[in-house]
């Protein structure tokens, strides 16, 4: 809808290169350089993955769902496998559950480091961006050494995990975490107090607690606005049942708060990883698979961007009858309408980046 009046004019932004190299088209209604309205047009990277899933069997869909998004590429197959396991009542062995949490938290750390790094890039602080990306390399190396790939871990399969980690791998992980921990503490200090970061991010793109509740935002966007919501604690699954998940909350509701939530969540993830390694149960890493019966099931998990839901319906064959997922980014897009209201044009990419949008997830 075109609401452009005599006082305002429309500015097209996108579809490419708005903070991230993912396509989303924003039609911004401007009054001078102040944003008065925003209209989003999606659909540039729709790949028809839900339809593709119906043409592949339950095993092939593990890999298909891993390709929905690269930054949360472990959360998708993890949640998909959980939906199959819920449907067929498969009891995943404790060691496999613990190994799944290890993979999930490693991916969360990498994802958050990427987002806060890109934030520094958007505000023109490129040396900080380079530094954060270099720290992220620690986790990239961990992923490559433990799982064999820097992004797609291929860690999950129905009924367990595809890999087993030996003491050597855990030692490599703990060594990486020990190197990362002081860097995250230092980064937290910089993101909290550095004058340049504060000047560009504090009180920018504010989403109040009330608005966050009304829009039902999820993940770090909700937690940055003071909402203590986290599926890992609220509806624990897998090995999270026995883990003490620290739900990180910041009250500011601005770009800085969301960045701080992500940085502090990295610290919480480091603690979770150490707890997992300490309490890693022995035993098998795979359950014996039964016939997958006809039926339907859902599974929920806390992806790096928030709550991820999978719905699966089967008809007794090996190919799903329906596979649907609701991604966290989908819930967070609407919040941009509020965050961008009365913002400056130059802050648009910064605010867009602060919800850590995943367009390939949203459109799949």
């Amino acid at each position, binding site marked *: 809808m075109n609401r452009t009046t005599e006082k305002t004019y429309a500015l097209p932004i996108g579809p490419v290169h708005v903070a991230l190299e993912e396509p989303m088209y924003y039609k911004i209604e401007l009054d001078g350089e102040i944003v008065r309205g925003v209209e989003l047009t999606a659909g540039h990277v729709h790949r028809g993955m839900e339809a593709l899933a119906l043409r592949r069997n339950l095993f092939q869909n*593990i890999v298909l769902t891993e390709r929905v998004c690269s930054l949360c590429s472990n959360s998708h197959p993890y949640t998909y496998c959980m939906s199959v396991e819920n449907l067929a009542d498969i009891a995943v062995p404790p060691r496999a559950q613990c190994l799944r949490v290890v993979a999930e938290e490693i991916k969360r750390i990498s994802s958050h480091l990427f987002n806060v790094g890109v934030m520094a890039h958007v505000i023109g602080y490129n040396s900080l961006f380079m530094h954060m990306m270099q720290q992220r390399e620690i986790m990239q190396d961990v992923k490559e050494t433990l799982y064999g790939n820097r992004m797609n871990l291929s860690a999950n399969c129905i009924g367990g995990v595809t890999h087993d980690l030996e003491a050597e791998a855990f030692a490599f992980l703990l060594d990486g975490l020990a190197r990362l921990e002081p860097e995250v503490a230092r980064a937290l200090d910089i993101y909290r107090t550095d004058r340049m970061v504060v000047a560009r991010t504090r009180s920018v793109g504010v989403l109040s607690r009330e608005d966050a509740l009304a829009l039902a935002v999820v993940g770090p966007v909700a937690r940055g606005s003071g909402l203590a919501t986290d599926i890992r604690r609220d509806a624990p699954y897998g090995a999270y049942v026995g883990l003490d998940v620290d739900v990180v909350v910041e009250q500011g509701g601005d770009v800085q708060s969301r960045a701080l939530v992500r940085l502090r969540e990295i610290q919480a993830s480091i603690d979770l990883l150490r707890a997992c390694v300490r309490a890693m149960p022995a035993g098998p890493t795979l359950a014996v698979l039964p016939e997958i019966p006809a039926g339907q099931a859902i599974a929920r998990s806390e992806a790096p961007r928030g709550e991820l839901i999978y719905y699966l319906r089967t008809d007794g064959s090996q190919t799903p009858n329906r596979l649907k997922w609701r991604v966290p980014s989908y819930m967070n897009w609407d919040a941009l309408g509020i965050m961008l209201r009365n913002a400056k044009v130059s802050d648009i990419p910064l605010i867009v980046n602060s919800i850590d949008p995943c367009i390939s997830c949203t459109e799949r």
Partner: protein
Amino acid sequence: MIVFGFLKVLLGNVAKGPATEPFPLGPATTPARFRGKVHMDPALCVGCAICRHVCVGNAIHISERADGSGYDWVLWHNTCALCGLCQHYCPTGAISMSNDWHNAHLQAEKDEWCESRFVPYLVCERCGAHIRPLPTSVAGRLYADNHVDVARILRLCPQCRQIETALHEGVRHDDQRVA
């Protein structure tokens, strides 16, 4: 002081020197678990086709030769997603992921850029039928509790194998009865 905190970080990074690996002038570290190009060992393949079943990109093709001499197992690298599910589900460990990440090749070579293996059928010693080879490791597992001549069994088709085993078992039972 403006950006003083970060200045220290920056100076530390300068002191550390380049963070990137000097490839191609120096070696690039590749971890042992790295999932590179798929490799298949025809000596271990039993032709169960679970790899083809779980392959999301349909990169694996298995086709029997017209003369019945065996089957071709072909994986097209350009369609392979390097997910490793074929390796994970392979019951005999015939499929492995190499450390080879050198994937550049000429456009003209793309069709031949495959892992292509021929798995020959054996001929049954008793009846002459074509049979799928059974790797010694798998046979050892299958016949662990049977006192049969595994080497001989492997050269027989399933039907002749049943007969051979039954004859052998029968003799053994007769022996026990006599004792």
